[in-house]
């Protein structure tokens, strides 16, 4: 969906390109759960935009600093003003849409990772693949090591469980016994 739009929606492409280049938005987004949390924060901020005279001040205070800075930069690029609740609403909607459109990679792994492990994997992925991909992580201790991946309807198993099974199958243990 993201890449299909490249050819038919140049504004969308530019917009996306700008967002992707703003590290502040995605820097601390590693998992699908992180993304949901951020969307909830944005929704809350958006709902409070028109509630009082101090809403614009509250807006900057209620948002995480990196998100707010990213919004400021994005507003500058798009020639929008932070003084207008309507402009802010547009910005929030765009960011929200962007987050919800991020591709998700389902990782099945053997151990419970630390937050640092998740961060390292996510950053490596973004750097190597060249786009932001969110992670969902499933733990299955039987997998031993490695990972099974599920991405946009495709599945690939690189776990050691499968490798061991293949190895034992390939070496024909039963024939070996009979020899």
């Amino acid at each position, binding site marked *: 969906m993201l890449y*299909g739009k490249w050819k038919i929606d140049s504004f969308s492409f530019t917009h996306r390109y700008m967002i992707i280049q703003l590290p502040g938005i995605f820097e601390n987004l590693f998992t699908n759960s992180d993304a949901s949390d951020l969307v909830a924060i944005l929704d809350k901020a958006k709902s409070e935009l028109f509630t009082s005279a101090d809403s614009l001040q509250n807006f900057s205070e209620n948002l995480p600093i990196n998100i707010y800075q990213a919004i400021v930069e994005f507003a500058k690029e798009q020639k929008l003003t932070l003084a207008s609740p309507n402009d802010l609403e547009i910005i929030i909607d765009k960011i929200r849409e962007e987050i919800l459109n991020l*591709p998700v990679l389902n990782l099945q792994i053997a*151990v419970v990772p630390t937050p640092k492990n998740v961060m390292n994997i996510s950053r490596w992925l973004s750097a190597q693949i060249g786009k932001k991909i969110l992670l969902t992580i499933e733990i299955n201790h039987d997998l*031993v*090591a490695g990972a099974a991946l599920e991405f946009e309807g*495709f599945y690939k198993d690189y776990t050691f469980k499968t490798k061991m099974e293949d*190895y034992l199958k390939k070496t024909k*243990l039963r024939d070996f016994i009979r020899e």
Partner: protein
Amino acid sequence: MYINSYLFILISIDVFVLLGVLVYVYFLYEKERKAWSDHKAALHASEDIVEQAHLRATKVVSDAVEKAETTIKQGDYLRSDLMKSFEKSLQELSSTISVNMSNDEKDFEGDFAKFSESLRAEYLKKINVTLAAIETQAQHEVEVFGSAIQKDTIASQADLAKKIKEESDRALLEIQEYKKQQLKLVDESIEKVLQQVSSEVLSKSLSLEDHEQLIIDSLTKAKHEAFFEKGINVEAKKGEV
């Protein structure tokens, strides 16, 4: 006077002939009675033979069943012993083998292959001893069965002997079949144990950093195999349409 003497002689002759006939009839009757008695005795004897043969046949068959059960139990023990001893040896081996997990997945796979080979070599040593024991036992059983059948059926009727032979052959076949199944189970169990122990040892040998690196190695492979581009291609095609 003369006539009376003549009549007396005739009557005497008749009486003598009659007596002769009576003696002959009695002789025939006795002969028939003896024949009937002999026949009855023979009938009893044959019934006894059949009864004895039946008892022997029942015993041979029950022996065969008993032996089959014993063999089956021994097979279970052997399998259970084999698995216990194999698991124990693997545990010992796993504690002594140093699996130096490298950060390079290729080396890691090499380590696993080496580790697996060591386990298999150890397994082979154990299984050879056990298989030899099973083979010897089976051979011995066949010989014992053969001589038991010959001994127990030599005095019996041929068809009875044939029946007993068939029964015992069937029991032997069942034993052989059971052994095949047991060996198959042993093979499957060995693979399972090998996999379980390997998994356990590998899991314990890996730190969280190793796991992280192996996950990144998996992602690198996926990247080289254009796994992440498949989705793009699919979407691009949709866009073109």
